[in-house]
């Protein structure tokens, strides 16, 4: 199994990004997703310590228009959440890939990473939409 000693980013069809570094994965939503949602006014993050199976509802993003679920891209346990989003949810629009991260998961099964898309595959996926 590949071990990601350098941070490496992958993507899901639900427009989440997952940056894998050793046994941790930082998760957020992509520019495409935040742009589709529009102005984000609230983010409900999971509790630290919560455990999720792949595809579980992990967080909720609320725009002016509607609430959208964010699914766990891979199985894992939440070890950290981005406290900035509580007061500044608009950070997700302003910096989806950097300051607007949602949480860090402790990866349960490293083999799951292989099912995610790399940058090139995700770009092609978005162009096909």
């Amino acid at each position: 199994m590949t071990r990601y000693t350098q941070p490496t980013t992958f993507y899901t069809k639900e427009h989440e990004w997952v940056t894998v570094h050793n046994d941790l994965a930082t998760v957020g939503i992509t520019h495409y997703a935040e742009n589709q949602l529009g102005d984000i006014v609230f983010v409900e993050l999971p509790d630290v310590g919560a455990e999720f199976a792949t595809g579980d509802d992990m967080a909720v993003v609320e725009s002016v228009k509607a609430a959208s679920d964010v699914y766990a891209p891979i199985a894992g346990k939440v070890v950290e959440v981005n406290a900035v989003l509580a007061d500044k949810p608009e950070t997700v629009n302003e910096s989806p890939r950097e300051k607007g991260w949602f949480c860090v998961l402790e990866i349960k099964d490293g083999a799951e990473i292989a099912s995610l898309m790399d940058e090139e595959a995700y770009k092609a996926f978005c162009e096909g939409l």
Partner: protein
Amino acid sequence: MSDPTTENLKRTPLYDVHVEHGAKLVPFAGYEMPVQYPMGVKDEHLWTREQAGLFDVSHMGPCFLSLEDGIGGGDEAHAKIAALVETLVPSDIAGLKEGQARLTVLLNEDGGILDDLIITRPIGEAAQGSLYIVVNGAVKDADWALFERSFQGKAVLTRADDRILFALQGPKAVDVMSDFFPGCEELKFMHHMPFELSGTSCIVSRCGYTGEDGFEVLVKPEAGLPLVKEMLTDERVKPIGLGARDSLRLEAGLCLYGHDMDPTRDPVEADLAWVIQKVRRERADFPGAERILKARAEGPAEKRVGIRPLERAPAREGTMIEVDGQPVGIVTSGGFGPSVDHPVAMGYVRSDLAEPGTKIDLMVRGKARPAEVVSLPFVPHNYKR
């Protein structure tokens, strides 16, 4: 993105304008409508409160109802057409002055609300015996079928939903409008004037659905299309989608039919008892009068109220309301109010909890979130009285 549900959708005469302005189109009330433009819902909302927002509402149901035996004939003709319409609505239509409009509700036999609508009395003796009525898009076919059934042999319905109906709303709307319709700045809230434009007649009303000063214009496409295109070149005017239309009306405390009122609610519960003028209450001659007047006298079981979540999480339509772990009501509209920069909602609660300041819990995703009953609107109305 392709959407199979868009296949049978109608388009308004302004469809190409929406596309040109980069609108994101969604199915709404049987039409392909702009939900937002590249500016985004929040900025469209704020623009309308500060400048002027242009809304395509051609999906709605403008129509004319005229006496079968012909219009003209002054007050007597108005009294005749008003008497017909008053069999379906509880407002004083006979008492409208020429040019005046009134918000009212269409009632079923139990006094439940079938729709909310605006009824306008035309200007000039020759036009009396006719009314200009605008109903909601989603229920226009049902409303019009009811009119035709109820007024058969007495009045003729003329649909006008092949025309352009647009609204210009916001503090700058009056300056923009008076360039195109000189004299319309003299109109007061809930009044209208007819205008000639490119040889076709159109109706300019001072009303709207945002809480701001503004106008609605009914105009034939051949004159309306160039008019709207030219208005949109004015730097004070931006096209605004349904997303901001919803957040604007919610902040203004205005009801959305099918959400904040429906056939299970009567006008007293919906906090719309003010649409029933004294003369109609005294005559008690409208559908469901017994139930409605009883609710008015004794207080309804539930009442529509404004709700302010105390935290940052919005509470959407369908959110249950609890007090001490017991269900006491439901949110019927909820979201984020860009002008108040805070979540806003409205819904129905037990009447004993309808007093502003009452603490309630909103059950958002299984968690009780604190909220407070507040008086509506969330932002002051800016109407030209």
